[in-house]
């Protein structure tokens, strides 16, 4: 707003528009008026000149006639007798040698007038010495000039008035058209965390506002989803922390409530320690997720073979896989700069999941292949087993989401953040998650941007 024209500057659209429209209307009407005034003035000037020429012709005819009948005397007499008819004009007649034969007395009005026009002409008079007379006929056009001036003033006034009318009218119309915006603001104000489900609606849909309203509502949908998720997450966290804390407090209280042998106390402490380590792991995982949420990205090292990483992770899982009676195969490979510990962690979580849900005796497959869009590499762990319902698939990577809570957590080791961590690691590598389940084969994994 540094170079702000005072006249055009306003903070409201209506004000700005009406001012600009007013100026625009005034300029356009002014131009039209100017042009019409000019053509009118030219017409008047031409008509005046014609009138003067006609008068000159009449004078010439009369004087020529008089000269033929009575010579110079008759001419002079006629000029004197006709003088009153030329109240607003002035006639001067000269002989051929240039001496003045006759001149009308100079009237004051004519003397002062600046709008006069003189026409000189010759009259052929064979009966007069020299055979001709010269005449100068001056006419006063002050009146038509004044008319022109008044006309011009009228036009200027009309232009300005039109500007003002347009300004007021435009302001009113614009304000009226923008009224829905005020309504939208009121509706937006009414949306609060308690009323997150409310959406904006337009009583009279306007093409310009509709995309804005649609986008805003879509944004609100996303926000509401995130908010609901966050609330659920908080509740889940509280629940996850409360259960082990209750155990810890209760166990400790019971242990202290009477004399115990050192062995019994040691037993309690050991049990407490296990519980606290579970808590600590949970808190660490939540911190990890919150870092990913804050937008921390992966620290990529030199390019590595993903199959080699997968082989390392499967060595780590060798014992559990064998325990579950599962075979493992790694298909495909890709070389990519990734954050090795993170990718290993994601793969380990996926493999752990697959181990728990795979049908005993089947083969778990780690598949490394270019993703469908070819920009990314897809890492998928595939296992045979009970299919996951289609409506559960998109929620698989949600925090604390469990397809079947009874089935998965009997050992208390799995707090339901494993796949959320996989999703976070994918996000840190600009990738996304993959989950499919059909005809007894479940494929869960993620992609990595190259």
């Amino acid at each position, binding site marked *: 707003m540094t170079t702000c024209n005072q006249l055009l500057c306003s903070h409201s659209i209506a004000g700005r528009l009406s001012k600009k429209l007013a100026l625009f209307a005034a300029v356009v009407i002014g131009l039209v008026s100017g042009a019409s005034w000019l053509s009118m003035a030219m017409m008047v000037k031409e008509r005046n000149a014609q009138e003067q020429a006609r008068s000159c012709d009449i004078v010439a005819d009369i004087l020529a006639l008089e000269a033929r009948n009575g010579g110079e005397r008759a001419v002079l007499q006629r000029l004197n007798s006709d003088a009153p008819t030329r109240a607003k004009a002035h006639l001067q007649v000269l002989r051929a040698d240039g001496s003045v034969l006759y001149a009308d007395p100079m009237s004051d009005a004519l003397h002062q007038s600046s709008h006069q026009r003189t026409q000189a002409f010759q009259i052929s008079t064979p009966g007069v010495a020299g055979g001709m007379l010269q005449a100068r006929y001056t006419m006063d056009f002050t009146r038509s000039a004044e008319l022109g001036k008044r006309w011009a003033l009228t036009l200027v006034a009309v232009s300005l008035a039109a500007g003002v009318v347009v300004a007021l009218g435009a302001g009113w119309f614009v304000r009226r058209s923008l009224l829905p915006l005020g309504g939208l603001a009121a509706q937006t104000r009414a949306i609060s965390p308690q009323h997150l489900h409310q959406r904006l609606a337009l009583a009279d849909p306007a093409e310009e506002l509709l995309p804005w309203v649609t986008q805003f509502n879509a944004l609100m949908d996303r926000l509401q989803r995130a908010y609901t998720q966050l609330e659920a997450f908080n509740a889940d966290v509280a629940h996850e922390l409360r259960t082990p804390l209750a155990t810890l407090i209760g166990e400790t209280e019971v242990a202290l409530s009477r004399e115990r042998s050192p062995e019994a106390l040691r037993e309690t402490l050991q049990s407490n*320690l296990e519980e606290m380590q579970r808590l600590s792991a949970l808190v660490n995982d939540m911190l990890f997720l919150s870092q990913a949420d804050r937008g921390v990205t992966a620290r990529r090292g030199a390019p590595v073979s993903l199959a080699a990483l997968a082989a390392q992770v499967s060595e*780590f899982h060798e014992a559990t896989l064998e325990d579950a009676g599962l075979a493992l195969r790694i298909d495909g490979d890709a070389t990519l700069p990734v954050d090795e510990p993170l990718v290993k962690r994601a793969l*380990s979580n996926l493999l752990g999941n697959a181990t728990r849900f795979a049908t005993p005796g089947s083969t778990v497959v780690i598949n490394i292949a270019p993703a469908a869009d070819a920009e990314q590499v897809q890492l998928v762990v595939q296992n045979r087993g009970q299919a996951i319902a289609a409506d559960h698939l998109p929620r698989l990577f949600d925090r604390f989401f469990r397809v079947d809570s009874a089935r998965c957590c009997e050992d208390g080791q799995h707090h339901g953040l494993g796949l959320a961590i996989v999703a976070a690691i994918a996000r840190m590598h600009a990738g996304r998650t993959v989950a499919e389940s059909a005809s007894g084969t479940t494929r869960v994994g993620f992609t990595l941007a190259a």
Partner: protein
Amino acid sequence: MRLLVIEDEVKLAQYLYKGLSENGHVVDLAHDGIEGRRLAIGGEYDLVLLDVMLPGIDGFGVLQAIRAEKRHLPVLMLTARDRVEDRVRGLEQGADDYLVKPFAFSELLARVGALLRRGQQVGAQPATELHLADLSLDLLSRRAERRSERLDLTAKEFKLLALLLRRRGQILSRTTLAEQVWDMNFDSDTNIVEVAVRRLRAKLDDPFPTKLLHTVRGMGYVLEDRAPS
């Protein structure tokens, strides 16, 4: 070994003092950065445990002062902030290792031991054969025997047993084992290490009357001969 613990949280400092003293170290405590810096530079220590968030001067400031005076004094940093920049900054400024709170005490003990050994074992020949009771491991031929009976171990099981044997008597946490044996540098939330240890135990201990591999609940595993000799 003389250790200096610079930690302002009194309860944590007390438990570090107790735990480290009981493990054979002489421990001095400093509760703020200024005192910590004075002790670290003026005293004779083999290792400094340094908290990052300290009153007076923060851990990075103390670390800088230590590095300016004593280039080879090992420093193990402790912090509640698990931010990558912090970790990088600490290591760049010359910290030898880094532990994020909350940490298991056994983990801390292992790191302290590793740092202290690093200072001493320069030039010492690493053993190629390890023994404990009737167990013997040949690291070169990768043979494990008990009572002259060969144990049929997988590569990782051998590596796991070798680590436990090299650090006999020390409790090794699941995290440490996952890190050292499988190079998995994260807290795995599954019982993978447990299963691996169970399978090792089935081959190592189950056929024999004396048990060597013991579980310390909530802390980890230890390999030692507990039989009265």
